[in-house]
């Protein structure tokens, strides 16, 4: 466990393998909620929270349940089970504890329950930080940090996208590409520009 490893995780998760623009995960929320900056930010915070927490939980499930019982092939279904349960629980919890917070990002939580980006992080963590069914030294911290960084990458993409779409809302574009078609075009151009990061490999 060293600082260089953390830096590598940060740069690759946020820029080189950006969860949306390079890995193409979590696209539905990326297109649907990027119309304005404020909801986009709320959604991003919710995603960041869930990816971090699910990284932690799935690490424990994988390390102490799936590996001892030799059930690593069940990781997808068990991860989905854990994440969905966790998100549902958090939604109920926030709704009870703090209505303003629920209004700010609670309404986005059900959308995240089955978001592929969240499952993607969990699977990625397992692929990267477990070798031959053994945890790499410090893999728990790496996993947690990768969860945060993927959330950051998602936030970056959401903020860029919503900023662009807010401005384009005023522009005079042909009727046939207004709204979603235009969003797809922007997303692909942004994705192309993020390919530029592929130059630095670690």
């Amino acid at each position, binding site marked *: 466990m060293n600082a260089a490893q953390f830096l590598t995780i940060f740069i690759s998760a946020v820029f080189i393998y950006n969860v949306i623009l390079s890995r193409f995960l979590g696209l539905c929320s990326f297109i649907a909620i990027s119309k304005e900056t404020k909801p986009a930010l709320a959604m991003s915070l919710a995603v960041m929270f869930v990816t971090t927490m699910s990284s932690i939980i799935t690490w424990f499930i994988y390390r102490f349940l799936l590996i001892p*019982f030799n*059930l690593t092939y069940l990781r997808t279904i068990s991860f989905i*089970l854990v994440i969905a*349960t966790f998100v549902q*629980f958090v939604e*109920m919890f926030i709704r*009870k504890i703090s209505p303003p917070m629920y209004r700010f990002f609670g309404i986005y939580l059900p959308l995240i329950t089955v978001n592929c980006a969240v499952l993607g992080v969990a699977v990625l963590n397992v692929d990267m930080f477990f070798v031959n069914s053994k945890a790499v030294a410090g893999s728990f911290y790496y996993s947690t940090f990768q969860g945060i960084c993927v959330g950051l990458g998602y936030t970056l993409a959401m903020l860029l996208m919503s900023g662009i779409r807010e401005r384009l809302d*005023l*522009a005079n574009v042909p009727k046939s590409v207004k709204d979603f078609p235009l969003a797809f075009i922007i997303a692909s151009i942004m994705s192309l520009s993020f390919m530029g990061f592929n130059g630095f490999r670690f």
Partner: protein
Amino acid sequence: MEILIPILTLAVLGLLFGMGLAVASKRFAVKTDPRLEKILGLLPGANCGACGGAGCFGFAESILSGKLSIDACRVSEEAVKEQIAKLLGKKLEKREKKVAVLHCHGGNRRVKERFTYAGIRDCVAANMLHGGPKACAYGCIGYGTCMRVCPFGAITMSNEDLPVINEDKCTACGKCVAVCPKKLFTLVPLTKMYAVRCNSLDFGKKVTEVCSVGCIACRKCEKACPIQAIKIIDNLAVIDYNICDNRAECFKVCPVDTIAQKINKVWKNRLD
């Protein structure tokens, strides 16, 4: 035997989580008023925000808590409002119906352009560039932003590039009032038949240079009105609709036909 382990593991995992969620949903249950859903079903669902609530859901919540009255919704029909009032066991107070009125009679026929605008055909965008291309800095730009923002399709653009309001469709939601960069709309009671169709605060000379029907602040209307319902404020005639009772004196006396009369739900001055 080997197949039993994964089956059991998943079953136990699922069971545990299921039970956990069931307990949590009991523990963290939030009580909601059953009337909320019913009220929400009765509301128009346009989420226009004219009531001051955050959409129809926010409005339903605030009429339940008593923050807003049912009357604040300008879109619902009276019958529907009475239904909601009955649901809450309250009585409905009646309110005068209002419509949006445009305070400009210029249009592209009377007001020239001072430069050719080639940007986005949107009043808000055009207004950012030196207040838009029209010679009158106070008048309607005519790119129809109000038409596009109207959730009820009550605004159309005339062949003079002036918005025309369909009084039957207008619900006085105030969206056009808010969006117009020149602040040309006000909400006027439906029964009032006269309106000042100008918004220019310039002096008379400057007004006549750019527009033939602009208010020159001659004060004839002010003197003609027997009940002082119309006053010149900052070089512009303004009717106080709390006082005005459709006497038409200002309309008859106006030398530049700024004051218009509503005939068959359309605003017309004497020249039209």
